[in-house]
């Protein structure tokens, strides 16, 4: 397996540690080099495009990163790419992937060549909602696990699950859930309410069911990043105890790390709790000037920056 240092050396100065975020676990977390690409928010090329900011060199920087990964692939180096959500920004792209594909053909084509795992984010959650009844998710997953010897060691989620209005373990999440239920019950009371109210009803449902009412990206001061860490720390503990709806028992769980994005604030911390050491990696973002990436190799982990 390519070590973190080997990877940095191969990148020839293009990839550096971000803010010194580097840790080493006592035991292996992955069996292959794992590269996590956080929030990309691809949308149409125009002034509001916060991927390119109207600067083709920003797109070129991402292409150089993908070229580097393609070169690793050609060297037959074993690695896994996980895009941790918000690759498309469907909120800003009129709810459609079509024109994003036209604008970013190179990026999307190259990423697909790397056969990544696509975790769904709150900005591209429509991909799993459009055809929910037909179980068409366009290859997107809610969460993903890395396993070693049949035991899951790392959980990957986008991170919106920890948001104020979604976190079911907080009072805010409880209120959010109850509002969602009431919204749902309205359709039970009158099945035609969606037809009667039309797009207004869609908006109400979407606001509570799909979209985060707040995101830490838009309102960073209103958010405590420690809340995200606390959420994932609790989640790891709960899952290790088998308290999950993912049809996996505690025998299959040895979770020691959570990887997420969403906040656009990279961070890597270790937290001892109940005799274990847990690792929490917020990969940051590629957009907003971040161009950050999460790297895990064996027992090593780091947040790096490209370019």
């Amino acid at each position: 397996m390519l070590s973190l240092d080997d990877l940095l050396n191969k990148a020839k100065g293009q990839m550096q540690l971000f803010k010194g975020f580097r840790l080493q676990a006592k035991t292996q977390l992955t069996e292959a080099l794992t590269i996590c690409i956080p929030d990309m928010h691809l949308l149409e090329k125009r002034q509001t495009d916060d991927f390119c900011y109207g600067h083709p060199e920003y797109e070129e920087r991402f292409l150089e990163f993908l070229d580097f990964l393609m070169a690793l692939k050609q060297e037959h180096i074993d690695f896994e790419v996980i895009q941790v959500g918000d690759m498309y920004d469907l909120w800003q792209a009129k709810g459609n992937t079509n024109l994003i594909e036209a604008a970013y053909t190179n990026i999307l084509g190259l990423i697909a060549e790397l056969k990544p795992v696509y975790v769904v984010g709150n900005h591209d959650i429509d991909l799993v909602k459009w055809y929910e009844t037909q179980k068409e998710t366009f290859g997107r997953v809610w969460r993903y696990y890395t396993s070693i010897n049949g035991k899951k060691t790392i959980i990957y989620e986008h991170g919106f699950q920890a948001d104020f209005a979604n976190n079911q373990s907080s009072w805010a999440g409880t209120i959010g859930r109850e509002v969602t239920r009431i919204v749902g019950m309205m359709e039970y009371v009158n099945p035609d309410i969606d037809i009667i109210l039309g797009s207004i009803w869609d908006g109400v449902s979407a606001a509570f069911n799909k979209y985060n009412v707040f995101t830490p990206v838009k309102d960073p001061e209103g958010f405590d990043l420690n809340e995200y860490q606390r959420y994932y720390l609790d989640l790891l503990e709960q899952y290790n105890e088998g308290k999950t709806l993912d049809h996996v028992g505690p025998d299959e769980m040895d979770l020691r790390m959570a990887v997420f994005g969403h906040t656009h604030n990279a961070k890597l911390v270790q937290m001892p709790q109940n005799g274990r050491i847990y690792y929490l990696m917020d990969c940051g973002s590629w957009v907003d000037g971040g161009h950050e990436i999460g790297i895990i190799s064996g027992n090593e982990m780091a947040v790096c920056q490209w370019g």
Partner: protein
Amino acid sequence: MRRLFLLCSLLPFIIACTTLSNSGTLSQQKENLYCLEYSNGVLWEQVQSAFGDPAFSPKPEPGTNLSQNARGYKNLRVYFYTKSQKIEEEGKTRFKEVVYKVEICREK
């Protein structure tokens, strides 16, 4: 409480943002359309039969062949079918969208 207040005050804007129209799938859009797929060599009779008499029949340009003409229609919808195609550009793998099919449609 601050968040709850913000939630309530921002809700109308959130709802407005989340009601952006979705254009539907291709098959949904084509439900009320009659479409003719373009391919090289399609008979003009088929075009005329599908869309009626053309709205524009320009004169031939000087020096051109009288038997080669252009005809235009108003109020037709054109669908270009695209797919991503891998190419090599200066030794790097790149992708371009190419058109592999064209359909011209009118409302039924």
